[in-house]
């Protein structure tokens, strides 16, 4: 295992002065489950003999990929580098690394990056001589095309050349003017991302369905990548439907979503797959498609106008399974369609005869089975591998079937399952320990950087603060030690997911902020000077004069825009008690703190207020653990997301020391108003302080100290039971109790805005 660390050590030993930083950075980029695979990938590339340049490029740009979109990208890159090196040579492999780093930054998310990687591998196999030219131009190409358009363009080039490598080369170096023309055409293609927002709104408006929509995964079979798919609260859509352009293309997306929505609205539970043959599965699915569409059209007659134009099957032609299927589909939706095939007519009659049972999903199964038997007797061959559902707006039917096994848990469902997996990872302590054991020898192999690494894992004592003893009425200097920890990085996707889940609220917050920001300036009345007279004040002044009183001379009004000048430090209590379940919500207190923080950060970022987020817990006075999640000068981006996701509850609540430490950062902010916003679920306490009042008084003292330095502290208390103590610490005015903790995520941002208005 010690060998594993070779490239890694080499990497850090190149620049001695910055080893420590790099080292720490690397640990951040490749948190525990990823470090070993990354090191293995480095070793593999090095061992494969592609040469020093490729190895170096992989190490350097792999890190850049990890920085941009996470460790998986860097690890996946290794396979692609190998494949490209074998097909197209070292130069291409080296260029691939460089292009990958750029692409990772540009695409910004793993699934698309993976699509790109797999595309590059396929391309290197198809056009080995041209791979490095294309890779060199990748920045330009991705500036014009998205990944699916790039694929079309590359294929266009390969097809045009017709197997002639010189012509291919001419195309991809853009010497052939056709290359330019095709590029323009591909760039103009409408892809789903262009219309995603309106399509989501369309589905929401029609059926009230709001689910994430993603691209089919690159590993899915070709047939299902060309069709939409739904299931497990997610809809997959191809980025484009080849052959449809412009408005027509929008219509396919719309038709596909309306169809998936119809399944989700009118469909029954999944059919057990049982012993059904592929032919029967396809037929039952086809009938079910027609059934839910018929139901949807009963409620939304206009959908017929959307769907019908896509049914273009002709009544003539060979009686092959795909042709018959497309004709049956059409016969079931299009009353004016007449088909001579007895089988199609029988299907339509059965379907119409059972019209009264339209609400019963079993009907599809019944008809599908009968028709399947007929087809068997007609000896019509059916090839499940090449079968693609027609018309194109229909889905691949995977969402209709229950395959019994948990085989759906492949990469495809990753997006949905990630959060669950995150929790599992926490639970898989034994696994993690095993991995740590594997890494252990490294630590012992006298490698200085790694030794320091371990230290970072244990936390770095950064400051000592006094603590107040109310019994003596004095502060004991240097009594507590604040130790800063890097939290284990969690899955950064958690944050976008939280925002997605609370989309309505996040939108509302954005809207409120926008209207507050661009709203009319405030009118200030009764001013000593200003651009207009305040009529009320004038009348009063005149009245006073007549009465012989001294008038108020502030008779002007003016408009003024209030400037915000405010810096906020959010401090989260992550003591052990935050692991408690909140009754009725299925989440822990920490989960809700996290969600609330995400929404709050969203609000603060929109407002443009500088803010920082940190978390604390304590294990005695010598170990007040403090974690910086987001610092003032950084943006609330992937790194902060990962840290926030990685927070885990532990230990106690030594509030005073944490507040003093938080204030030290805030102190440096040059804002008119500085605010510490503390989220806690309990009162100050710690294992080494049996006397309840001691830490309460210390926290109170800390807040007085902060106030003297011009820092306000506001506390949001979760749950009841500590009113007395917290009132004592913060004072009633600077404290808000939230009884129903499950509502925290929606309350906190609004509270913040009210607090800082």
């Amino acid at each position: 295992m010690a060998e594993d660390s070779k490239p890694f050590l080499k990497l850090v030993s190149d620049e001695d002065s910055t080893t420590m930083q790099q080292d720490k950075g690397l640990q951040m980029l490749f948190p525990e489950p990823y470090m070993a695979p990354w090191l293995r990938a480095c070793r593999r590339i090095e061992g494969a003999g592609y040469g020093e340049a490729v190895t170096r490029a992989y190490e350097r740009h792999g890190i850049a990929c990890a920085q941009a979109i996470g460790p998986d990208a860097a690890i996946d890159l290794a396979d692609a580098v190998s494949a490209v090196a074998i097909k197209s040579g070292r130069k291409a492999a080296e260029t691939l690394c460089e292009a990958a780093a750029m692409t990772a930054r540009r695409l910004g998310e793993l699934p698309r990056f993976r699509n790109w990687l797999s595309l590059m591998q396929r391309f290197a196999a198809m056009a080995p001589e041209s791979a490095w030219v294309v890779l060199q131009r990748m920045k330009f190409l991705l500036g014009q095309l998205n990944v699916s358009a790039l694929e079309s363009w590359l294929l266009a080039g390969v097809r045009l050349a017709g197997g002639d490598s010189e012509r291919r080369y001419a195309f991809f170096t853009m010497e052939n003017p056709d290359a330019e023309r095709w590029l323009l055409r591909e760039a103009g293609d409408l892809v789903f991302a262009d219309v995603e927002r309106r399509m989501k709104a369309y589905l929401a408006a029609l059926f009230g369905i709001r689910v994430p929509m993603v691209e089919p995964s690159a590993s899915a079979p070709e047939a299902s990548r060309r069709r939409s798919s739904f299931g497990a609260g997610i809809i997959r859509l191809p980025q484009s439907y080849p052959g449809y352009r412009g408005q027509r293309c929008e219509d396919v997306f719309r038709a596909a979503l309306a169809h998936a929505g119809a399944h989700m609205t009118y469909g029954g539970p999944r059919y057990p797959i049982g012993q059904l043959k592929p032919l029967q599965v396809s037929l039952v699915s086809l009938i079910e498609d027609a059934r839910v569409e018929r139901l949807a059209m009963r409620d939304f007659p206009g959908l017929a106008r959307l769907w019908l134009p896509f049914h273009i099957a002709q009544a003539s032609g060979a009686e092959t399974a795909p042709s018959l299927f497309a004709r049956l589909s059409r016969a079931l939706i299009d009353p004016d369609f007449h088909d001579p095939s007895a089988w199609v007519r029988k299907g339509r009659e059965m379907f119409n005869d059972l019209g009264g049972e339209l609400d019963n999903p079993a009907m599809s199964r019944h008809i599908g089975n009968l028709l399947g038997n007929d087809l068997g007797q007609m000896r019509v061959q059916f090839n499940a591998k090449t079968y693609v559902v027609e018309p194109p707006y229909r889905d691949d039917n995977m969402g209709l079937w229950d395959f019994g096994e948990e085989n759906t848990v492949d990469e495809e469902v990753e997006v949905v399952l990630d959060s669950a997996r995150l929790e599992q990872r926490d639970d898989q302590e034994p696994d993690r320990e095993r991995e740590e054991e594997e890494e252990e020898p490294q630590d012992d192999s006298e490698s200085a950087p790694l030794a320091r690494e371990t230290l970072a894992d244990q936390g770095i004592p950064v400051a000592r603060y006094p603590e107040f003893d109310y019994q003596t009425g004095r502060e004991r200097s240097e009594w507590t030690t604040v130790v800063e920890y890097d939290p284990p990085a969690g899955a950064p996707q958690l944050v976008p997911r939280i925002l997605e889940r609370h989309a309505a609220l996040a939108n509302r917050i954005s809207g409120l902020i926008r209207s507050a920001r661009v709203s009319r300036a405030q009118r200030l009345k009764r001013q000593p000077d200003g651009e207009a007279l305040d009529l009320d004040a004038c009348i009063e002044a005149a009245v006073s004069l007549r009465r012989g009183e001294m008038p108020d001379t502030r008779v002007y009004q003016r408009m003024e825009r209030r400037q915000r000048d405010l810096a906020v430090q959010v401090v989260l209590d992550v003591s052990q008690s935050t692991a408690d379940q909140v009754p009725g919500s299925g989440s822990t207190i920490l989960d809700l703190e996290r969600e609330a923080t995400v929404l709050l950060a969203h609000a603060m970022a929109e407002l443009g207020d500088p803010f920082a987020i940190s978390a604390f817990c304590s294990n005695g006075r010598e170990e007040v653990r403090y974690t910086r999640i987001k610092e003032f000068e950084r943006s609330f981006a992937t790194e902060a997301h990962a840290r926030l996701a990685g927070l885990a509850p532990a230990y106690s609540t030594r509030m005073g020391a944490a507040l003093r430490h938080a204030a030290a950062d805030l102190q440096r902010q040059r804002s008119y108003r500085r605010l510490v916003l503390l989220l806690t679920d309990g009162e100050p306490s710690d294992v080494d302080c049996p006397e309840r009042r001691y830490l309460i008084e210390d926290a109170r003292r800390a807040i007085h100290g902060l106030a003297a330095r011009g820092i306000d502290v506001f506390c949001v208390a979760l749950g009841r039971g500590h009113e007395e103590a917290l009132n004592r610490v913060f004072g009633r005015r600077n404290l808000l109790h939230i009884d129903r903790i499950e509502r925290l995520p929606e309350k906190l941002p609004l509270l913040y805005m009210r607090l800082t208005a």
Partner: protein
Amino acid sequence: MTSTTDSGSLDAYRIAEEPYYRPTGDEVALYEAAYAGRLPMMLKGPTGCGKTRFIEHMAWRLGRPLITVSCHEDMTASDLVGRYLLEPEGTVWHDGPLTRAVRFGAICYLDEIVEARQDTTVVIHSLTDDRRVLPLEKKNELVTAHPDFQLVISYNPGYQSVLKDLKESTKQRFCALDFRYPNAAIEVEIVAREAGLDPQQAAKVVRIAERSRNLRGHGLEEGASTRMLIHAGKLVARGVPLGEACEIALVLPITDDPDMRDALGHAIAASL
């Protein structure tokens, strides 16, 4: 301008014809009970769901004059209670709408109360507890409420502005009725009645409204209100095709976002 000290002026605030209101629950009985006890009422609910129509209907039913004040952010306490104005013979006190209602026994309806500044809203405090008096500080007078007087406010939680909200001490003085958009069957009845439309057409309009309400919070601040449906219905009743009527009455007014317009437009097309 004349001094408004004669009670006869309240006649202008009496409602002669029955305003159409279709109850969706037992709100009429609840309100009558609240009025019998002269309890201050708060009507909550999204815009265009019938709050104002309801209070007009109740004023007519109870035979009381109704003084409506639309609150706005520049409204001061004197806009409510009154002020001294200069007239040739000297300064003369003019009662504000609230004072007039208090003196002569009307139902005073403060529409969109949160729009008013918070210092303005506190003038209603003494009227909304057992004192039922209105102190006119500047005039040095304490007006005791007429036995028929009742205060009603409307309050849209949420989408005004988070920066504005009722003080807790104000909220807690009121009983509240929560208004929603009525369920489909009732809404069809309302649209048919108000717009003079046949129920089948009205039902289509209501189905379409459902589409835009699905987008509430997902691109739209608020879905189409009952009031908008009536507008659409009136257009249809005058011969405008349903699709176009919905476009100009339901889609264009509520959003300028091209994506939302597109989505709504197509969702409406699907419903026709």
